[in-house]
């Protein structure tokens, strides 16, 4: 039978490789210039899922919600060993906050069906909210363990996990299915496998197949899709309609989070004042610190 896992991944800007052209003069990010990568902790989450598969068999399915080019990270997941990948993409998903995103993802997971584990990275390096995983678990009404450091034991219908907490760790046991969010230290992700790179390099989403047919009257998308499915190179592509979603809960409409303002905050030292080690001077310092609400 094996143990089936679904891994939720996200394509994020590669903030570790920022070059001069990426920052615009107004301090905002020029996304087009920023290389996009698979979020590191999502990669670690995939590694944990693949280790379970290595040991117990089963299937690893990847889902991502994102723009058409997010297919790049899905191919990378296939290169590492994932069995199947879904791109959830629709213009109507644009502007989604964590609430709307977890709605779309949880509905996708319901459609995919049976699973024992859902894995996600703890958080994405662009938003840093760490909310999508937990919210997805809530919507699916399954238990969740966040900050997973190590999977200690996988039983028939339960799992024992060590999770990181401030200043230490705790060991939790949960019944399956469960959603785990994973921290980077949990595992070193395996490399892309040479044979899978060569086999899946041409895997394509529906959107990419549509692009191929543009300006070529001899190609029909449906036919192409059949061909890609037959060759095992089709990345399943789902839209809002495919998932029969409630439009008011998707994208900007379904997102109560509103960004008020983006500011570029520069932290720098200001003027300094010298305090001499005398009784009077020290009293003056304490009064000043109390006025600034640093003390008291």
């Amino acid at each position, binding site marked *: 039978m094996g143990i089936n896992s679904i891994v939720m991944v996200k394509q994020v800007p590669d903030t570790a490789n920022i070059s001069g052209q990426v920052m615009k003069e107004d301090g905002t990010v020029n996304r087009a210039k920023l290389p996009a990568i698979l979020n590191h902790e999502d990669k670690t989450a995939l590694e944990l899922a693949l280790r379970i598969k290595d040991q117990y068999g089963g299937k690893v399915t990847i889902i991502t919600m994102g723009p058409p080019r997010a297919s790049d990270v899905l191919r990378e997941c296939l290169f590492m060993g994932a069995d199947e990948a879904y791109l959830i993409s629709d213009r109507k998903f644009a502007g989604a906050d964590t609430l709307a995103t977890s709605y779309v993802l949880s509905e996708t997971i319901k459609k995919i069906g049976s699973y024992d584990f859902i894995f996600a990275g703890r958080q994405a390096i662009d938003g840093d909210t760490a909310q999508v995983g937990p919210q997805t678990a809530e919507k699916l009404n399954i238990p969740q363990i966040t900050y997973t450091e190590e999977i200690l034991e996988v039983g028939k219908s339960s799992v024992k996990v060590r999770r990181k907490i401030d200043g230490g760790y705790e060991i939790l046991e949960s019944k399956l299915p469960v959603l785990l969010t994973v921290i980077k230290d949990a595992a070193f992700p395996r*490399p892309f496998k040479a044979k*899978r*790179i060569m086999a899946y390099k041409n895997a394509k989403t529906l959107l990419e197949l549509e692009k191929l047919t543009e300006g070529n009257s001899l190609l029909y998308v449906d036919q192409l899709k059949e061909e890609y499915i037959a060759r095992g190179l089709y990345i399943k592509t789902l839209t809002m309609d495919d998932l029969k979603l409630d439009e008011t809960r998707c994208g900007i409409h379904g997102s109560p989070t509103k960004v008020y303002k983006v500011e570029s905050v520069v932290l720098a030292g200001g003027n300094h004042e010298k305090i001499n080690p005398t009784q009077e001077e020290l009293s003056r310092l304490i009064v000043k610190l109390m006025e600034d609400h640093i003390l008291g």
Partner: protein
Amino acid sequence: MPNFFTENKDLLYHFERLGLEEVVNFIEDNFSQSKKFDYAPVNYEDAKENYRRVLEVIGDIAGNYIYPRAAQIDNEGATFKDGKVHYAKGTKEALDMLSKAELMGMILPREYGGLNFPTTIYMIAVEMISRAEASLMNIFGLQDIGRTIAQFGDADQKEAFLPGFCTGKYTGAMALTEPDAGSDLQAVKLHAYQDEKGNWFLRGVKRFITNGNGEVLLVLARTEPGSKDARGLSMFVCYGDETVVVRRIEHKLGIHGSPTCELQFNDTPAQLIGERRFGLLKYVLYLMNRARVGIGAQSLGITQEAYEQALQYAKAREQFGKPIYNLPVVSNILINMRVTLEANRSLFYAASVWLDKKEMLESHIDKLKAEKKPYSEFNEKFKEANKVVTLLTPLTKYLLSESVNRICYDSLQIHGGTGYMHEFGIERLSRDARITNIYEGTSQMQIVAAAGSVINNVLAEYFDEWEKRSYKGSLNKLLEKIIEIRALFNDALKYVKDKKDTYFQDVAAKDLVDLYGFIYISFLLLNESNEDQRKVFIARRYIVDSLAKAREKYESIKNELYADILHADTILI
């Protein structure tokens, strides 16, 4: 986060212009393999795309995973405890990563789990791995052991050994050297005998065996009692089981991650590879020639890294109020290093592609023979390729391994006192480089191997053709200089031949081989310059420098510099 493939412009340059179409067509059976394997290419472009993508992954693993472990591997080294060899922690991790990425069977057939890549693509990988950690190459680069079994083993042997190589479960070793048989392998004594059922066993000692602790060993042994030369030697494959005792490992100057073992075979069960009595003459020759190209790649990888470290240090180190990079004497050394690096790479990939062509033609002919089809057309091509490979393999091994020592010397010099300290990478590179012109045949042996071809001027037709080509503007001035080097070579060669003095000829062979190398590499760079503007700088310095050196060598020969060899006993008190 350096990627040793995508961030190495010169390597990418060579990758883009490798002329491997014919080779790839053949090894892919005109791309019919794609019907059986989902990862086999459907055409040449697809194959190239496969190579590029896989090399990108190797470049990433080499630069970001292995390279940061190099100092640790050097410090810990391979160790020997309780009769067992242990790799350094970093070596183990690196091998594990490369195995997981399915890169341990790059040149093995797909039916056994390999990637079926041309040798040249594998060599690009070897170059990058060597740059990251030179001694890891001595394990990663032993894929040629599997390749030799794939080439000459029978079906059962392939089935038994090759899948393990591909997954990384097996590493190999070639057990050739013995205490009294180093450069002179004809003197091998290790005894192979048969029991009454015809099973073979090995008994004896091998020394200086790289990765002798490997799971699968290719062993050169004497099968014909009483014989004294190469015709009594045969090739065997065996497992490194409990009958193979590692007696010790060597404490070496460099390549600490690679265990160098003394092995004792105590009636080790073994299987004969191919035919009896062809051990040295056919199979070791095949394996050694490939291994020599591999050492060329190792030298090239270390050269690249020694250059990078010198460049980086020169830019960062300030003296007299500015980076030493801006001092002309320093930038001049750096330019020399860079020119040598690129010249060497041109030679290396030309040699490697010729090796691929030669092996492809050889296999093609074997196939046609088996199918009882005419093959004379390919026979001519094969002879030609074989002729070129016979020269280029030892020439490349000799020039690149000598040169990496010089490059490390210069790089350390640019580092000044800092470079002499253990904490800096160049100290390790200098030690690692030192073995390259010793093992797999010393430079002196490579010169002997190349000298015959040089004396017969086997590339003359190529040189003639390149002389007749039309070159852009200023390149014609460079062409004139190459023609001058050729004239010096021809004159020196005639002088040596006419002298009919074998002592003199043996010593002068080095100069003649050097001169021949100048001509060949000069032409390669000239042709590159014709297509690529930047390469003009590389070609100019290389050719002008070569002409100066050529004159020196010419003078040495014509002035009878070596006439005193006969008086060695008087001089050497």
